């Protein structure tokens, strides 16, 4: 329950990002603001302060007040505002790519499990092969290819700077992780009595697929979904950290950690805050995922109760 509340708070906070940026921080989180100033304790302080040695400059650290709450980055941008906007991008990419993965995987898994024979064998082998690829290697290979020229399949054109690119890449990479269990579930549902009964009644293939099998396979997809979002957010942040995920001027938690790497020892809050946001989000999603599983799979609870009785 607590985890659901935390997740909602994070989502609402990121939704309010534009309000924060325009009303409170009063800076544009995507434009550099090298000569900006902020008022601290009645004194006007430049956002980017020259170093005492005269070489280079350091952005201000956390002020713990409305403006520049978490300090500024090397471009003089408000870290807190960027964190909220970055959270938006991270959550959008995470949820959208998890949706892409689950959608493709459900179709592929249904197709493989329901058709059987050559179709099943081909799809299963293909899934095995993509699955054998380490996630990061496959994602890196796809990103490097697509980042130079973007993606264009027929009428669909995806610009290299678009958020859709990481969504497509991450979604594709995770397809086998969902499609394999879906296929297994379809195979087991197919043999259940109610499906046999429907076949005996002369139900058509389409009816079998959409009325009998799909509704009974969906719960297992729903159980995987929150865990998938967590995995996708983590992957997005890693790719963005490697500068091949979300592209500037867009920010995500991963790109903020990457930006913060250069000033890690002088202004660690930049990286630390973004990392904490990722960690909390992933933790909450994992707990929620466990909760959804317990709610949707009564057998898991039954097993637990039987176990408790066995102990008593």
């Amino acid at each position: 329950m607590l985890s659901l509340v935390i997740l909602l708070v994070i989502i609402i906070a990121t939704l309010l990002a534009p309000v924060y940026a325009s009303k409170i921080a009063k800076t544009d989180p995507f434009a550099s603001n090298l000569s900006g100033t902020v008022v601290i304790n009645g004194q006007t302080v430049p956002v980017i302060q020259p170093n005492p040695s005269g070489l280079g400059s350091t952005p201000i650290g956390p002020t713990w007040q409305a403006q520049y709450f978490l300090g500024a980055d090397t471009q003089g941008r408000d870290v807190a505002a960027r964190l909220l906007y970055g959270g938006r991008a991270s959550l959008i990419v995470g949820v959208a790519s998890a949706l892409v993965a689950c959608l493709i995987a459900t179709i592929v898994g249904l197709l493989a499990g329901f058709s059987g024979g050559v179709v099943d064998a081909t799809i299963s082998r293909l899934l095995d092969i993509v699955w054998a690829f380490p996630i990061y290697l496959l994602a890196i290979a796809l990103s490097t290819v697509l980042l130079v020229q973007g993606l264009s399949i027929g009428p669909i054109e995806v610009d290299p700077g678009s958020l859709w690119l990481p969504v497509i890449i991450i979604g594709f990479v995770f397809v086998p992780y969902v499609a394999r269990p879906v296929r297994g579930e379809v195979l087991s549902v197919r043999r259940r009595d109610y499906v046999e009964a429907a076949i005996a009644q002369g139900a058509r293939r389409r009816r079998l697929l959409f009325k009998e099998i799909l509704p009974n396979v969906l719960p297992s997809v729903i159980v995987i979904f929150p865990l998938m979002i967590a995995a996708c957010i983590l992957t997005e942040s890693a790719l963005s950290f490697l500068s091949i995920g979300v592209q500037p001027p867009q920010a995500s938690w991963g790109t903020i950690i990457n930006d913060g790497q250069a000033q890690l020892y002088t202004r660690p809050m930049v990286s630390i805050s973004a990392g904490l946001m990722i960690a909390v989000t992933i933790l909450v999603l994992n707990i929620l995922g466990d909760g959804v599983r317990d709610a949707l799979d009564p057998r898991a609870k039954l097993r637990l109760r039987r176990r408790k009785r066995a102990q008593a």
Partner: protein
Amino acid sequence: MIAFALRRIASMIVVLFALSVIVFLIFFATPGIDPARQMAGRNATPETLAAIRSNFGLDRPLPVQYLTMMDRIVVKRDIESYSNRGVQVIPQIIAAAPVTFSLVFGAAVIWIFASISIGLLAASLRGTIWDPLLMGVSLIGVALPVFWLGEVANLVTQQRFHDTFLFSWVPPLGYVPLTEDPIGWFTHLVIPWLVLSVLFVGFYARVLRSDIVNSENEDYVRTARSKGISERRVLIRHQLRTSMITFVSLFGLDFAALVAGGALLVEVVFGLPGVGRLTYLSLAGLDLPVIMTTVLYGAFFIVVASAIVDILYAFLDPRTRTA
């Protein structure tokens, strides 16, 4: 046994072929992509583009292009980086491999011992507050992004607390070969080992605990108890032993994936010149030949490693031979 090994090797060769085709398709035949422009990097001259086209046979049909690519990467091993002209990619990979292996090996030792201890402890303390506590900590470990954890570790050990007695022994970031200076090798790698292992300790401890708890109702556990064997012996000799099956097969896959390039985030954060960092450095310039080669070799390594693990498995446990 030999029949099984041969069958497994045959399927391995099929998978290797399929993998290489997929890598080829990603780099050469993604819709809307001109592979010559990809490989030439940004701002290439028309002459370079033409040279690459004839070099890789890009004006020929796709199957010929595939054969040309495989010939250059696998048979002739003559593939050059485009951002550092004249630098051969394959010797670089071979030079970087021991670094990656040192990193992954040390982390694996830590994660095996730590996750078995935590999993066992949590399972045996079931019903007390310690079980959910240990599992909660493991869940947090799984949620931490590894590159961020590495940065925080650097912040603590390299700067904030570097001058205290706790971390004054931590050397600057980098790598020292084991053969040159074993102690330096160890001190350079301890922090990266710990950081890399955190995720796996958390994940494996949770898997192990739930497997042990699930084996509670199994017949062999009841039999062992009814024979009057002590609880500790039941837990370690019977429950832990069977629960290790999932653990071991997961371990094989994860270890191979890390060696093949999965450890790149940790290598990047700690400045370890391994295979992953090689890939990372070529990402900045989108140095396709290097990326293509590391991806292909990484994928090959995983497939070969999993075939070897399967054959070893069949050797140890005859039941798996028929599967």
